């Protein structure tokens, strides 16, 4: 499932606790700034084989999961 893979990439990136991440969690709440988000998006692009437009405005983990699921369709 996309959410689980996204969680795993987040855990690898800054050692956050996977059990605390839900679709509503914001990047900011995980202590991640806008450039951390850019780096994570690069990892998501590699993992899922997609390209994500930076102007889509991602705030929560749910936003990114939706973008990935739409891009994979």
């Amino acid at each position, binding site marked *: 499932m996309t959410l689980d893979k996204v969680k795993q990439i987040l855990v690898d990136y800054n050692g956050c606790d996977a059990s605390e991440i839900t679709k509503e969690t914001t990047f900011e709440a995980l202590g991640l700034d806008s450039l951390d988000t850019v780096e994570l998006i*690069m990892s998501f692009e590699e993992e899922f084989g997609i390209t994500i437009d*930076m102007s889509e405005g991602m705030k929560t983990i749910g936003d990114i999961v939706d973008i990935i699921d739409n891009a994979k369709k």
Partner: protein
Amino acid sequence: MNFSILGTGSALPVCIKTNDDLSKIVDTNDEWISTRTGIKERRICGEEPLSDIASVAASNALENAGINAADLDLIICATISGDYITPSLACIIQSKIKATCPAFDVSAACTGFIYALDVAAGYFARGKFKKILIVAADAMSKLIDWKDRATCVLFGDAAGAVVLTAGDDLLSIKLTATGDATALSAPNVTGNCPFGQIPQTQPYLSMNGQEIYKFAVSAMCNDITDVVNEAGLTKDQIDYVLPHQANIRIIEAAQKRLKMAKDKYLTNIKSYGNTSAVSIPLLLDDANRSGKFKKGDLLALSAFGAGLTTGACVIRWNK
């Protein structure tokens, strides 16, 4: 046959502006600039023309190489912000250091120094020239919009130079270009032609920061991997990485992905910001003069910038 580095030099404008100084001009602060970029201060060509510091950098490199301006066969200048559109900055430097050889500019923005190295390698391969001076000099302060906090905090002005002699210490080199004026560009002068029909754009540098960030991290990873392989080496054998200094976060992201020890990466962004084509020769000169490099050390240089251009190479330090 390509080249060996015979000497290095650099020069900085006298005016220093800290993050706190900039917070008096635009709505920014030291905390934001430090955490997002790693920059603390930068130099600004406010009191001297760029050609002055470029010529000092050139003279310092000649002195370090132990040769005279009259010994030079060619001057190549990597710049996008010379004093004039024409004459080239290389010609102004030629006159200021009292050289007599041909001189021209190369325009590849922040990748300019690596492009110039490849041009020089071509001249050495032809066997005609024995000594080539490369000067990288940029005053990005002239191109940026000092009302735009997203770009004006990033750049600084400086000049760096190397003297090359015929040799075989360029082990591999790679250049790329992907023409694109939307992600990062700075418009040229438009003049006052009475027949001009094209709408005028803002006369300043504009940039899509996050797209450039992604482009930069992947360029560094791909290019360094490619030139290390092309040189028949492994990443472990590289002693130092000299990455273009655009943002410390770009360097750290590439370092994590390339899995090369952090202390191999040389940086100067904290004191100088992004000095465009100059960042790598400035690193080279600082390391040379502080005695950091040992003869035989393997250096990986990697740059990216407007164009979009990228370039990387592996050089053996032979001084």
